[in-house]
């Protein structure tokens, strides 16, 4: 695992922090962008590993040390939040059931199958560990020149894919969090006194992160029985109703 963090530009203090993870390796900022675009599954991002990488590569001092640390803590907190949001069970219950409920036998079968896969994976880990110290000969001959055929169409496809990859610095979405879930929850509850609230109206002027925090807060409230969520169509408008 490699990582590096050196002083970057003033406006983007984490510009040169790179991470090497299983699911992604490259600039940390781009990882954030890919997560927001849902091109990288937040489930698969080991947040603890990212924090360790940052701490291990964090240069001591420097003019922008405080700014860098603040920026990192802010973005890491956002990731924790997004991850917990996706793990929230209430999210699923608001959507129509796509899969019929599993019978206890089916559930048992599914878990048994997963348990086997899990044991298989543990066995593979041991096996890979035991074989990680072998290094092949460096005396390998190259095939005669001309034996390799590079497909021009595949090359063009690769060029198109690489050069049109939509990557832009994403940190604008991820300013430090200035509101806590508790504060938002209190705000939603006081607004609900006047009647039903539209989620879309509530978050109209918010950035994506704050909208996510607001959503998380509303899920907390729904879970505690302080409000009811109503959504007539999948992905349609979401309304918060005062609890009866």
């Amino acid at each position, binding site marked *: 695992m490699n990582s590096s963090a050196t002083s970057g530009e003033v406006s983007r203090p984490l510009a040169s922090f790179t991470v090497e993870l299983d*699911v992604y390796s490259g600039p940390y900022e781009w990882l954030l962008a890919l997560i927001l675009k849902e091109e990288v599954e937040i489930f698969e991002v080991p947040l603890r590993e990212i924090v360790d990488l940052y701490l291990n590569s964090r240069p001591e001092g420097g003019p922008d040390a405080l700014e860098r640390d603040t920026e990192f803590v802010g973005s890491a907190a956002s990731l924790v939040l997004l991850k917990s949001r996706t793990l929230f069970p209430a999210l699923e219950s608001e959507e129509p059931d796509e899969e019929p409920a599993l019978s206890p036998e089916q559930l048992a079968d599914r878990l048994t199958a997963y348990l086997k896969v899990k*044991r298989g994976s543990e066995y*593979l880990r041991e096996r890979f560990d035991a*074989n990680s110290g*072998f290094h092949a000969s460096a005396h390998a001959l190259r095939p005669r020149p001309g034996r390799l055929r590079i497909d021009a169409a595949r090359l063009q496809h690769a060029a198109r894919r690489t050069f049109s990859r939509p990557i832009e610095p994403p940190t604008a979405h991820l300013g430090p969090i200035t509101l806590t879930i508790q504060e938002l929850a209190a705000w939603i509850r006081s607004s609900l006194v006047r009647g039903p609230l539209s989620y879309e109206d509530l978050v109209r002027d918010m950035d994506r992160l704050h909208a996510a925090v607001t959503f998380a807060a509303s899920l907390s409230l729904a879970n505690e029985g302080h409000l009811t969520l109503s959504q007539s169509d999948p992905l349609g408008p979401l309304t918060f109703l005062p609890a009866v």
Partner: protein
Amino acid sequence: MIPRPAHLIESVLLVSARPIEPGDLASATGLPTREVQDALYELETRYSPESSGIILRNVAGGYQLATNPACAASVERFRQELRPTPLSNAAHEVLSCALYLGPLTRAAVSAARGVNSDAVVRGLLERGLLAEAGSDKGIPGSPALLAVTDEFLASAGAASREDFPSLETLVAPEELDRLRQRLNEAREREAPPAPDGV
């Protein structure tokens, strides 16, 4: 001087980083298969972990010279290279799906694990441990089927796909019983039996 069969095999093994199949050793050296096998037995002794810093491995359907893992620290110091990042739990699970349940589609991997696995699959394809092997014609869109590669076998030190214990032997029957029991208990907690007379 006419070189001995083992010497011919040895020299060819030196110039390949990848495992070489016995048939390819035979055609390169011009030796009959039987002599190739005898030479390989001889070389297994010469290049055993006890007697050498170089080991003859039988992996991924072929034979390969590689450094003795006991010497790994010196090799890595010489190369000034870190070992590649170890795979995550998620990656091992995906490989376990491909090895034991595969070839299978990305959706089947995600279903078996209960979580979207596309990013992990992408990483494993990039590392050459998984490859697309045909497609499932029975599903609309004919999604690609994923299978483990020779690189996977070499990384696991396996001669072939059969060189792994079956899933049934990896999970003890008692463990399966415990799982079912826990599920039953959980179900009873959620839906307690109705009291008498109601």
